[in-house]
């Protein structure tokens, strides 16, 4: 009986530790980080990708990155061509579109209807599917809205990589755990801009705090015409775009 008594006590204590209903009533957030991308301004130089890889120690020559830039070329015939050679870590230095498998396509300038660059990074979703599927609590949403990965806790099961509708997650080639953009959490929480925002020469990337009424990026998000990626997934992404087109996937 003593054994079962101890077990019952431990059970009650354990359950109390896991399910704390009061904790579910989250306190109002002091800050909420958001991001604004202007696709008209982006020139496809790829300095953001370079800065991100160096700042966050993602091996430069590895074909994975926390952020990348996509090029879209829509021809007058309605053909949509898109590429991101080496995640654009060296920028776009040729007009030839990389079709993959060593094939390239040159599009004559006169047949281009529209062409533009779209930087991609983690959307820091308000309802992040990557966090929902984590079986060990290794990835989580902070009070200020950023999704982080606990490298000591991650078991490398890869569920989060499968769950992200935006393809933002990958395995870190050195740490062998799930890796993702976190808006340079070590920088934004210490009063700095994310490395990609700092490196962008044309101001196409901006960080903002939607809780701050004086924040200029937040003001644009709240008062101007912006759009988000894949709203149909219900993830409530927090990277907003100016000039997004329906060709962008």
């Amino acid at each position: 009986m003593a054994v079962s008594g101890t077990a019952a006590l431990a059970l009650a204590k354990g359950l109390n530790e896991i399910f704390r209903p009061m904790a579910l009533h989250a306190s109002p957030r002091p800050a909420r980080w958001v991001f604004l991308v202007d696709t008209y301004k982006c020139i496809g130089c790829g300095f953001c990708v370079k800065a991100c890889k160096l700042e966050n120690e993602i091996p430069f020559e590895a074909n994975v990155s926390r952020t990348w830039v996509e090029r879209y070329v829509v021809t007058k015939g309605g053909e949509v061509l898109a590429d991101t050679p080496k995640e654009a870590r060296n920028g776009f230095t040729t007009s030839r579109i990389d079709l993959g498998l060593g094939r390239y396509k040159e599009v004559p300038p006169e047949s281009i209807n529209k062409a533009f660059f779209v930087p991609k990074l983690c959307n820091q979703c308000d309802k992040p599917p990557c966090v929902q599927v984590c079986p060990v609590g290794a990835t989580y949403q902070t009070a200020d809205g950023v999704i982080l990965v606990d490298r000591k806790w991650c078991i490398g099961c890869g569920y989060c990589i499968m769950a992200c509708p935006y393809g933002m997650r990958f395995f870190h080639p050195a740490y062998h755990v799930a890796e993702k953009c976190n808006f340079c959490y070590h920088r934004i929480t210490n009063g700095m801009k994310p490395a990609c925002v700092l490196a962008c020469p044309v101001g196409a990337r901006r960080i903002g705090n939607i809780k701050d009424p004086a924040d200029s990026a937040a003001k644009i998000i709240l008062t101007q015409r912006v759009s988000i990626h894949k709203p149909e997934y219900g993830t409530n992404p927090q990277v907003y775009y100016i000039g997004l087109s329906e060709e962008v996937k």
Partner: protein
Amino acid sequence: MYVLRPLYVVLALVGVILIARAFIVPKDFGTHESGYMYGWYRKSNEGEWKALKAKYQGKEYCRDCHAEQDQQVSSFRHNMIECENCHGPALEHPTAPPKLTLDRSRELCLRCHTYLPYPTSQRSTIKGIDADQHNPGAECVGCHNPHQATKPQ
């Protein structure tokens, strides 16, 4: 009541697992601000991320010592480019590293100055070259000064 014995075994097992859990799981692991679904994690990991050292320091950091170069570039359009984009992240320069790795390559310039005829992008407004026609293979900095708007030498 021997039919209940398997139940005691199960209860004892659950107890052992929960006791073991109390030792293994860190004290700060649990449900935090974002609730059970999104905020179930080890709280001290937030601090571990925040404690990482920033590598890119920004123009203001460079300006303190390299005022002359900063002055030189300030009247030129390249002022919009961070020093570290070409000179490499400063980290704790001049302590570590004492010298930065400057990228003088043609490829660095071509990131912006390959002309791309994209009507709906700001890229097409940048003065650019056809890299296959304009002195192929040569380093741009041999003729052009990246800090100042000067005629090619």
